[in-house]
């Protein structure tokens, strides 16, 4: 595999993986914008992610799918998708040719997530890992703990007659939050319009979440006192916020692990919750795959590669425009 101006390319197979420019044949790990880009001639992805891929790439995009674990030969190269535990339908791509195995992880996490199939360890010779949170300060607490903190925050605001507006990425995090909170309560949550269609895709896939109501369908002048509202971070400094009256804001993201990241953006509360692997899980995963060579993409590719290298792993950063959670 090599990197071409279009993206990661498998030479014998003649296909690209998560290309950033239009190509003839694109194999896609998941539906986030930095991995799934429109304009390619035809796509191949995991079946569980088909609905989301169509929403990202357009209803008329040509998308073939494989079940997790199902193998397909392309020009003598065997490919298969395996759960990455990142978001609904997210996959690692396994590529085998002439006895050499590569795994492109896309984005992944090891923490349990009720909205998608859990990460599967795929032994390989070369592992391409992400490093969105590839610094040793990034460690996640148990998801149940974070969900309880969020519920407590919602309740505290409810008691004061305020709305609680929680920002989170529209694809993946919002649904995971709604699924985790569904274990603790059954109250309805208000949602920003950007989340609406994506929630349907998750419901179609049978994911159980709290009932939701789009903010846009609420009658004008209705009070949001005591409500929980989910919205993408891009809504945070817009006039859309005005309707909520007195409210507190929160942001659910791995970046909230660092106090300055929350303060800079002016959120009242930060909840540390990420759909990416934290530092210990990145190291554990690299070890689990027993890969001889590790290539590192996203955010902190350089420090993670450097660290692995010092630990005796043949590792190097791989330059890609993948963004991780910043753009998800």
């Amino acid at each position, binding site marked *: 595999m090599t990197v071409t101006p279009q993206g990661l390319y498998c030479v014998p197979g003649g296909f690209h993986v998560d290309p950033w420019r239009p190509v003839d044949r694109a194999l896609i790990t998941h539906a986030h914008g930095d991995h799934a880009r429109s304009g390619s001639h035809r796509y191949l992805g995991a079946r569980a992610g088909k609905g989301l891929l169509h929403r990202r790439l357009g209803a008329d995009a040509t998308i073939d799918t494989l079940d997790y674990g199902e193998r397909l030969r392309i020009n003598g190269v065997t490919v298969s998708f395996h759960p990455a535990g990142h978001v609904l339908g997210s996959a690692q791509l396994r590529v085998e040719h002439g006895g050499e195995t590569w795994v492109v992880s896309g984005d992944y996490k090891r923490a349990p997530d009720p909205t998608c199939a859990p990460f599967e360890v795929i032994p390989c010779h070369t592992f391409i890992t992400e490093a969105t949170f590839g*610094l*040793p*300060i990034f*460690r996640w607490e148990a998801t149940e703990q974070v969900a309880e903190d969020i519920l407590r925050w919602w309740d505290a605001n409810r008691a004061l007659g305020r709305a609680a507006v929680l920002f989170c990425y529209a694809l993946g995090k919002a649904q995971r939050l709604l699924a985790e909170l569904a274990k603790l309560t059954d109250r309805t949550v208000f949602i920003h319009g950007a989340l609406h269609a994506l929630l349907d895709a998750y419901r179609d896939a049978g994911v159980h979440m709290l009932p939701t109501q789009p903010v846009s369908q609420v009658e004008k002048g209705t009070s949001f006192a005591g409500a929980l509202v989910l919205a993408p971070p891009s809504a945070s400094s817009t006039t859309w916020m005005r309707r909520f009256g007195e409210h507190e804001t929160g942001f659910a993201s791995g*970046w909230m*692990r*660092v*106090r*300055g*990241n929350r*303060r*800079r953006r*002016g959120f*009242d*509360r930060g909840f540390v919750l990420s759909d990416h692997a934290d530092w*210990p899980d990145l190291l554990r995963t690299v070890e689990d795959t027993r890969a001889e060579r590790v290539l590192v993409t996203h955010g*902190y590719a350089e*420090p993670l590669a*450097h*660290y692995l290298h*010092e630990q005796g792993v043949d590792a190097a950063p791989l330059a890609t425009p993948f963004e991780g959670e910043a753009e998800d």
Partner: protein
Amino acid sequence: MRRLADLYETLDQTTSTNAKVEALARYFKEAPLEDAAWALYFLTGQKLKRLIPTKLLVGWTQELTSIPGWLFEEVYASVGDLAEVIALLLDARERPARTEELPLSVWLEQRLLPLRQLDAAGQREQVVSWWHAMPRRELFLLNKMLTGELRVGVSSTLVVRAVAQVAGLPAPSVAHRLMGTWTPSPTFFRQLVSQDVSDSDSSRPYPFYLASPLEQPPGDLGDRAEWQVEWKWDGIRGQLIRRKGSVHLWSRGEELITERFPEIADAAAALPEGTVLDGEVLAYADWRPLPFALLQRRIGRQKLTPKVLAEAPAAYIAYDMLELGGEDLRSQPLRERRAKLEALLEDVPRLPVSPVVQAATWEDLATARGEARARNVEGFMLKRLESPYLTGRKRGDWWKWKIDPFTVDAVLLYAHPGHGRRSSLYTDYTFAVWNGTELQPVTKAYSGLTDAEIGRLDRWIRAHTREKYGPVRSVEPEQVFELHFEGIQSSPRHKSGVALRFPRIARWRTDKKPQDADTLDSLKELLHASG
């Protein structure tokens, strides 16, 4: 310690001023006096100095976590706060959720302050044992105290409001009692909130009254005759106190600087008992202020040799009188305070009175403003003649009307990550101007852009990086910025040969190409204008 951690968390998690004052007041009401005194110490921005060198703290963290030095640097560049970095890295191990609770005063008096008596090995043993036994948020606070960085992000005005609320006193009385040096003790806190008005500390300054920048045309201030106009001196604001046989000179940062300026202290010794003046410390010779750079050089010196004193002789230009004969004059109108000031300081060497600028109309004044640079002043101070001496920054009676800043168009050359709350963004920049066909870095600047612009520039920087040097990136020389600055001086320490004072970004000149940027020669021409 837990109570302080709760307070810190509450303050950190709200942007509402009222909620902050409420949380502070609740703390002061509920905490034991000895804890409240220490909390107040930190909340008013004071810190424990020289407890443990940060180098040692970093070293111990690396040993405990097996993090190599370069990775620690990388983490620090991304977080920007050493206390937080250490707390986050140590969070790797299982942490106790709740631990033995010690009062804040015990932490400080029996644990932290005694660290000074230990050698490095003893300090290590102590600190590491605490690190093992604390939950993360308390560990973070402990580190903040150890590194002397504990700032809580509330302004002293809010702290004063909260104490005043608890004590049932007017805020200015509390502000006054908090001035100067005090030891965080139960006695001090009891006196602070007591209704008894007698005040024993003779060195204590009054809170300074601060002018607001004039944003409207001066004509809007009304009748010119109601205003006293002075030059705005470019020195160190100071309060000069002559009480009980001694002299105290306080800087606006509430630091005692008497010993830095022996000639002023000597001159003030001749003042009558119970005198307090407000004014400015300047480098000053032949009844004329010298450039600020000279004063700065003097402040930088450890030892005041006769040579230093001769090179940059200091004077105290007095512009207000707050106390005379032990009587607090602050409620009297400026007109009367000024008359007393002039009568007292007629021809006292080293203590000149700030002259009143005699321009009959606002228009004449605007013309006179042109002289400001040649006089080494920053512009005008406009003070309402009927105004009392207020506390803090209250708009309306005192205005500063600054001369327009110098400007230069420069090219962005290097980007540095920010610190603290801007730790994941490139927020500090190095700018260059043309020296022949080369771009010569001339200054760093980090303020002036909006958050949105910083975000946009950050993305541009990441996409147009040429090289990385540790956390610093060099970028394609494409972006032009208009910088403002207050002065320029020649500087052999800078490769460009010049140093700018208070440089900041005025605007992002997306309309300009790098070849439109200014030259080093044109910048150097300003050296004369700037004096």
